[in-house]
């Protein structure tokens, strides 16, 4: 039993992304290509894919089989919502939330997108911008994904034509203007042949930008988190009560946004009491400054009664106290919304009973039209409604803060997660 020396690694950041596309746009081929060309696929996995390719009578190695599913899925011809895949380059580590393109699309994409920094929307160069592409872009904007990459795929089938690419870019751009999308990048690729995925290839000399992988490696993501407003939902109160830590009282949690320094003045909500940060403690010793998304322990100068579910904010910041608020929700359950029922809402580290109103409107995600006549929301529906809770929650607008503006709805009877909410 030997303990090795402590070794520090200097490593790139973590980027989480999601891939969206209609069936057959080439999503599996693209993921297979990224994994394959970044050498993240192991020989035994390749052998398994070769075996399946042969069994299915395919002439060549079908990279899309790499993301092939479970036995339960194969038997029933269904695809289970989200699979997570990993690869790394010297610059960054990547987590792909791979969501299947069919029926439960909205639910799956919203789930995968909720933690993503970036979405790749695939467009088939031959078919151009379809209803589905618009739907994907809308969902990306709804969930507040900071970066969108529109990958125009199958360029080989349109003779690698710049005209086709430019036309699709213009069409998508016109539509995207109406959405709240911060950063949209367009890239022409052939997932099948590899052009402009990891390497440039020789077929797209007119494209001035970077290959897709380089975009993923270099896109700036540290501003994806709100760096201004300090939000610290208390997860756990640590009071060891041991002789050597007799007076220790630490408030443990993750900084969801912003940053904090030892000595800063803070306010505890909902009580509204103020004090100062005495120490930012970690197992590796105290920190002078800490920032999102670090998990830390705050020691405060004064004894204030604080428990899980409270939120610590910095001096002047003022989030909203709300007993009632409007939200966009995506309904995830087969059981439709029932305004007569009691639900639970989990918001940061606080779970409370809640009543949901009838939808103010339901969004037709194909036309983006608002249907104000909707009585309820069913699975995969997106709509606006009002949430009422007995004790006030400390909330931000989702547009300002993904962490303190989001909530999930739990059905008290089935214990299922039935909706995802974004506070307006």
């Amino acid at each position, binding site marked *: 039993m030997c303990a090795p020396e402590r*070794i520090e690694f200097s490593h*790139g*950041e973590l980027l989480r992304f999601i891939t969206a596309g209609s069936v057959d746009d080439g999503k599996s081929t693209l993921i297979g290509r990224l994994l394959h060309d970044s050498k993240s696929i192991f020989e035994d996995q390749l052998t398994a894919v070769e075996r399946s390719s042969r069994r299915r009578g395919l002439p060549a190695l079908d990279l899309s089989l790499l993301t092939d599913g479970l036995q339960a899925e194969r038997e029933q011809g269904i695809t289970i919502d989200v699979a997570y895949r990993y690869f790394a380059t010297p610059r960054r*580590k990547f987590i792909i939330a791979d969501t299947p393109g069919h029926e439960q699309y909205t639910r799956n994409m919203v789930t995968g997108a*909720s933690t993503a920094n970036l979405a790749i929307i695939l467009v088939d160069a031959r078919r151009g911008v379809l209803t589905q592409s618009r739907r994907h872009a809308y969902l990306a904007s709804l969930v507040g994904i900071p970066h969108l990459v529109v990958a125009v795929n199958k360029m080989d089938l349109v003779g690698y034509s710049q005209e086709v690419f430019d036309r699709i870019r213009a069409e998508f751009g016109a539509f995207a203007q109406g959405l709240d999308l911060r950063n949209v990048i367009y890239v022409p690729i052939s997932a099948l042949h590899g052009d402009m995925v990891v390497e440039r290839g020789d077929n797209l000399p007119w494209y001035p930008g*970077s290959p897709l992988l380089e975009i993923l*490696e270099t896109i700036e993501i540290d501003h994806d988190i709100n760096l201004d407003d300090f939000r610290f939902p208390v997860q756990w109160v640590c009071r060891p009560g041991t002789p050597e830590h007799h007076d220790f009282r630490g408030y443990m949690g993750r900084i969801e946004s912003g940053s904090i320094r030892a000595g800063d003045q803070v306010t505890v909500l909902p009580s509204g009491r103020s004090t100062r940060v005495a120490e930012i403690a970690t197992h590796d010793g105290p920190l002078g400054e800490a920032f999102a998304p670090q998990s830390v322990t705050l020691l405060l100068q004064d004894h204030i009664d604080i428990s899980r579910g409270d939120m610590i904010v910095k001096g002047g910041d003022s989030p909203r106290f709300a007993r009632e608020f409007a939200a966009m929700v995506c309904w995830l359950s087969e059981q439709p919304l029932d305004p007569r029922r009691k639900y639970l809402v989990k918001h940061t580290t606080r779970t409370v009973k809640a009543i949901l109103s009838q939808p103010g409107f339901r969004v037709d995600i194909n036309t983006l039209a608002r249907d104000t006549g909707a009585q309820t929301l069913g699975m995969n529906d997106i709509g606006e409604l009002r949430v009422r809770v007995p004790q006030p929650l400390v909330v931000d607008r989702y547009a300002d803060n993904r962490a303190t503006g989001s909530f999930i709805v739990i059905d008290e009877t089935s214990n299922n997660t039935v909706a995802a909410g974004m506070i307006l």
Partner: protein
Amino acid sequence: MELAAAQELNSRIPPAPDFALKCPVPVEAPPAHGLSHLEALESESIHILREVAAECRTPALLFSGGKDSIVLLRLAEKAFRPGKFPFPLLHIDTGHNFPEVIAFRDHRAQQLGERLVVRSVEDSIREGKVVLSSPTQSRNAFQSVTLLDAIAEFGFDACIGGARRDEEKARAKERIFSFRDEFGQWDPKNQRPELWDLYNTRVRPGENIRVFPISNWTELDVWQYIAREGLEIPSIYYAHRREVIRRNGQLVPLTDLTPPRAGERVETASVRFRTVGDLTCTCPVESTAATVPDIIAETAATRITERGATRMDDQTSEASMELRKKEGYF
């Protein structure tokens, strides 16, 4: 050296062309406020551990003495010190463990001053709850029975495990908070959606959740973290000389339970273990790695998955992990 190793992994990717000037994406120096990928993963795992502790009534942390659960214990220290862990450690002992690993398990639990509960498959066999077809049969799959008994005995409503999504394709589709019915079964088609970092931990009495705080870590991340934290690991993870038998492209360690078959030759090789499970079905790989950086270098360069190289039981069927999970396996 360790950086070189990580870079070696990717050296086969052709260098990106120099397109910075025309690149539509701003390329900037690394920000002062960014976390490295290991720091980001660590923070996510600590957050998950604290959520389990706060929301579940009687959780337990599964500790086997293997590298993934060693990492879990360090993360638990980061999450709860200077307090004690708000859960006991639980080991489901197959009785087919490498002695070095069991010694390490006890040593580590004692060093941490945390309570270790051991329940053994041997007892389940004695009580007739597990019937083996042969005494040397792999007991990996039978851990489920003993685990479910332990869950019932202590009323555990959450079991924290060290499984990772990169291990296997059933895992790739499993949630971080993975709900199990009262028979301990996983239903892949009926999983709760998991959004943001808002985990639904609600269960009825008798039901249970398995929680996997290092879901998003890869084998390489685990080794890098072991190096960064200077964590002790059982000696059999390092290269050592061992008597082995070559069988179906794998190295089978020679033990009382795994004797040579007719016509097989026993040889001595320099090997290390990538996983340390049930010794009737865990194979070492050839290696000269004497230090953690050496292991990282080998891990970065390896072309075979952890399970592909080391597990006799997962190869037989593409779906075997999925089946075991449905039956209540970790």
